[in-house]
């Protein structure tokens, strides 16, 4: 009633705009304007650090350069590998943990809290302390691995074969709890009567899982993977702290390369083109993914 009085004289539409106006303004200022500006810059040879040099229009030159550069495709491949393995592992382990924690047992809450802890840490901090865990001389990780099987001295971060796995392991350790939480929410939303009916129909546990649990939890799992996919596509801080993109460029993800081109080499035009390509890629994949997800939901 008091709100009505306060906004007396304003139409409902005006009040609605009053509420969403600031958000829309911020969205335009922080997201849309920079995006349009970046698209404009991507057609120029602009260098942000070269003061006084006016950007010149170069057409599609930057896009052609990005797409023809072998090194860029290497970074994209590194990113694709990283995304594939992290998403796969987080889906499998996350779902497994959710199934485990969906059961009632003593200490369930405490275990859930402990499992969730890693995702509450800062990615940069996680990157730094895993460099110590991976240390071949004093690192706990190497010690634990060698405890089960003696591989001798190995360097997770310094080897081009192991370094890509080192970032996959850390990301999986950190973000599996997120997938687990979303899946757990999905599992808890499945009505019990479905399982009771299945029991009456003499369905085995495996059949219950395949025909009730999995279809129910799948939309949730796909949603979690969508979030993780977007996040991992732009993964930066944890990997920079852990490997700096090395050895060589073995773990240099597209986002790390983009940062180096844009804010270290200051190739603003070129890096804008690269950023637009990355944006279109993730936007395209995201859209296809959402459509697939909706179809699965409709089933």
């Amino acid at each position, binding site marked *: 009633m008091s709100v009505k009085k306060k906004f007396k004289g304003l139409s409902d539409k005006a009040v609605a705009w009053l509420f969403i106006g600031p958000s829309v303004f911020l969205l335009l200022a922080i997201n849309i304007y920079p995006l349009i500006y970046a698209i404009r810059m991507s057609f120029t*040879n602009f*260098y*942000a*650090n*070269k*003061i006084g040099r006016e950007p010149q229009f170069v057409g599609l030159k930057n896009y052609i350069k990005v797409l023809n550069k072998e090194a860029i495709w290497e970074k994209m491949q590194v990113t694709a590998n990283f995304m594939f393995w992290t998403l796969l592992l987080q889906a499998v382990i996350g779902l497994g943990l959710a199934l485990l924690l969906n059961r009632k047992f003593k200490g369930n809450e405490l275990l859930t809290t402990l499992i969730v802890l890693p995702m509450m840490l800062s990615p940069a901090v996680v990157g730094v302390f895993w*460099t110590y865990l*991976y*240390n*071949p*001389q004093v*690192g706990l990780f190497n010690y634990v691995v060698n405890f089960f099987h003696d591989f001798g*001295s190995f*360097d997770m*971060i*310094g080897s*081009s074969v192991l370094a890509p796995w080192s970032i996959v392991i850390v990301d999986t350790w950190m973000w599996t709890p997120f997938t687990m939480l979303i899946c757990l929410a999905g599992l808890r939303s499945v009505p019990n009567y479905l399982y009771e009916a299945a029991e009456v129909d003499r369905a085995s546990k495996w059949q219950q899982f395949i025909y009730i649990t999995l279809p129910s939890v799948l939309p949730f799992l796909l949603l979690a993977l969508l979030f993780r996919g977007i996040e991992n596509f732009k993964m930066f801080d944890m990997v*920079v702290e852990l*490997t*700096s*993109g*090395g*050895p*060589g*460029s*073995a773990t*240099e993800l597209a986002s790390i390369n983009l940062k*180096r081109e844009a*804010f*270290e*080499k*200051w*190739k603003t035009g070129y890096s804008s083109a690269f950023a637009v390509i990355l944006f279109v890629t993730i936007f395209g994949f995201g859209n296809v993914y959402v459509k697939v997800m909706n179809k699965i939901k409709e089933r």
Partner: protein
Amino acid sequence: MKKIMILLFVSLFTFSANSNAKSITLGWAAWDPANALQELTKEFTAETGIDVNFEFVPWPNFADRMLNELNNKGKTFDLLIGDSQWIGAGAVYGHYVKLNDFFDKEGISMNDFSPATVYAYSTWPKGSENYYALPAMGDALAWAYRKDWFDRPELNSEFKKKHGYDLGVPANWNQLHDMCSFFQGREIDGQKRYGAAINTERGSEGITMGVTAAMYAWGMEYENPNKPYDMEGFFNSPQAVEAVEFYRKLYEDCAPPGHSDAYMVANLDAYKSGQVAFQMNWYAFWPGVSKEDSDGRVSGFFANPKQNVAAATLGGQGISVVKYSDKQDLALEYIKWFARPDVQQKWWDLGGYSCHNDVLNSPSFPTSTVYAQGFLDSMGIVKDFWQEPTFVELMLPMQEAIHDYVVNGKGTAKGALDKIIEEWVEVFEADGKL
């Protein structure tokens, strides 16, 4: 109420008194010499009444932080002790104040400073008489070694039996490798030791600074001396290729496990914790190492060994006045004070590396510390990376390609150097130099 009013009045008075005080801000990297400078600067404040605030940025973020500040025309810093490679960008993009008129007015002569440091830290274009900084901190890449292990008769005799000469300061890089590999995996006092902590860092400039120490010693030139920016056959000459291959061998045979992304602090830690017999590092760290070894029995120091020629990687910085500062007069006052010979002597005494001739040419200088002679030797043979305004663009491909070859073991040394030239040509073309 009365008490509150008095408190408010006192607070306001204190605030206004502080805001009226003259103060400037100096930016530098966070390391031992910065603490020495902070100590030294207390005398400047006592003499002039000008407060100096310090902002020290950790090395891995130093270039990013400072160059972003300059590119954004930031007013955070009035004075900046910037890396030698920044001088080109500082001059060309107008970040630094040109100091010639000020030097003339105040009677500060660049002839009073070591020529190598004036060339490296102050001038742009290189070797011209346009000065954009006062040489502040001389530095070069050098080596420290475990003298106490070298002095053990049983180790020395074993080494001599194998290599035919005594353990000691290596005369060249081959001897350095012999000695490093001798200690690799060796058990001393019940602990496993390794050869050398060398620069392998990927993110900023570490591995480039390390590998160039070898490349310069092999006689590498960046470009044709008669045709600027013509790098083919110079930067990737057979000598340069051999040096890069040697650096990889040194890494594979002598570095401690896990030393694949290491620079200043990691090298220092590996050495101080007794893991390695040698460490590669900047002279700036030797006062700290030496301080913990008061009788000089544990550590010895030497300049970068020669191979085909005597050469060392240049470090160090000059002090510049930031063009965007509103307090340029106070900043210049600081430079005038810092250039004084008596202040320069105190700077050296506190652990800073003065570039002033009065300090360096003093008869007592070579024996003033165990590393002073090495510093003098090094400053006579230093070579620097490109100091072009585009130096970051030039540094990044070198970091990637060298790390890929040395640490990752990918490809060949020649392939890595060719790839770097390819990228550098692109940078120089975009900059209108080619």
